[in-house]
């Protein structure tokens, strides 16, 4: 970057870089405050920060630039994302304003503030500037270090203390005192028995004779499927397949083939349709809980995977 002693302007390269990245930064900032999902805001902010890091570098603050990327974008923003996840990614607050006139006021203030600020900068006489030539001559980091440990040593120490305090504070704040003693395993098991819950593991799904897919309920000795064997999620989605009817379907298919083999075309056309019908019925069977097998969107979705299974 430029090391001009005292100049009134910077290199064109920097100018170009500035104008490109500045737009990015502003867009990022706007995104931060306008995105509905906190995650997106965080990401936009991270973008802006990276751009700022580059600007630091451009301004000869190499150390800060790096710190900005590593600590800020790296650590702090991640912390943000972490908390966002903790709180819930889907927590997208509606941008509909509850406070009356808040948004207008905000816009007004923001506008006025910005204009005033710019005005202030504008009428400050900042025509010329002297770069960090000799300041950074001994190396930027060394320069900072020299200052921190001499002139700003107390401030430095105090910030150290502040950080420790912050860490402790965070722990204290988030720490949750457990009120009652933790139950031993024995107690837990006893409680489970008393509660009349299912004591042994749940039965596994699938009928090992022909199927071991998790969405196939196991059959009880009397041949009826057992709901317990299918995971609650699938049950909730209604994706439990009933295979109790498949044996007959296969038998019918066999007859079709043998019939075609005996050369009865007309029937064959019909028979060619039949397995599909059977398929549909299977699908229907699968969607039985969903009710009417005929025009069922869920059923419509099933054939392919049911076919896949059939293969």
């Amino acid at each position, binding site marked *: 970057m430029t090391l001009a002693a005292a100049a009134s*302007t*910077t290199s064109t390269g920097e100018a170009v870089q*500035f104008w490109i990245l*500045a737009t990015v930064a*502003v867009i990022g*900032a706007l995104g*931060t*405050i306008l995105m509905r999902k*906190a995650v997106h*805001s965080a990401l936009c*902010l991270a973008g*802006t*920060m990276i751009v*700022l890091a580059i*600007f*630091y570098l451009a*301004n*000869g*603050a190499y150390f*800060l630039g790096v*710190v*900005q990327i590593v600590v*800020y974008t790296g650590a*702090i923003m991640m912390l*943000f994302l972490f*908390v966002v996840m*903790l*709180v819930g990614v889907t927590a997208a*607050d509606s941008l509909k304003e509850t406070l009356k006139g*808040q948004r207008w*006021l*905000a*816009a007004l*203030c*923001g506008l006025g*503030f910005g204009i005033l*600020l*710019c005005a202030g*900068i504008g009428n400050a006489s*900042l025509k010329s*500037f*002297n770069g*960090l*030539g000799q*300041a*950074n001559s001994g190396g930027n980091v060394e*320069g*900072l270090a020299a*200052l*921190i440990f001499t*002139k*700003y040593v107390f401030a430095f120490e105090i*910030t150290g203390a*502040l950080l420790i305090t*912050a860490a402790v*504070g*965070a722990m204290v*704040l*988030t720490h*949750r005192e457990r009120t009652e003693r933790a139950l031993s395993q024995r107690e837990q098991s006893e409680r489970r028995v008393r509660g009349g819950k299912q004591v042994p593991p749940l039965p596994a799904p699938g009928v090992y004779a022909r199927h071991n897919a998790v969405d196939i309920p196991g059959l009880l000795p009397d041949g009826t499927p057992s709901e317990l064997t299918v995971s609650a999620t699938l049950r909730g989605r209604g994706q439990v397949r009933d295979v109790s009817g498949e044996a007959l379907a296969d038998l019918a298919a066999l007859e079709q083939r043998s019939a075609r083999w005996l050369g009865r075309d007309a029937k064959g056309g019909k028979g060619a349709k039949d397995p599909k019908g059977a398929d549909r019925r299977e699908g229907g069977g699968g969607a039985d809980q969903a009710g009417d097998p005929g025009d069922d969107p869920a059923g419509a979705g099933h054939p392919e995977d049911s076919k896949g299974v059939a293969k």
Partner: protein
Amino acid sequence: MNPVNYLYLSALLFTIGAAGVLIRRNAIVLFMCVELMLNACNLAFVTFSRMHGNLDGQIIAFFTMVVAAAEVVVGLAIIVTVFRSRHSASVDDASLMKL
């Protein structure tokens, strides 16, 4: 170009951040906006240090970062706690000052 543009940029960012603080309800986003404002200040500091040709500005920016870090840590901790107690991160829900 004159580095004063950096200052204009920082002013702009700061204002945007501030506006964000005013319009967003989600505490986390609020924090992000605050961070944005801090960063804007940092940019200004850095630019100043360049203009004056000494590193004090950078030092200040550095301290700002440290403080910001501390603040974020505590602030987020608070948010989490609040979220636990009342399942929301909206600052408007915490309008307890009004009886």
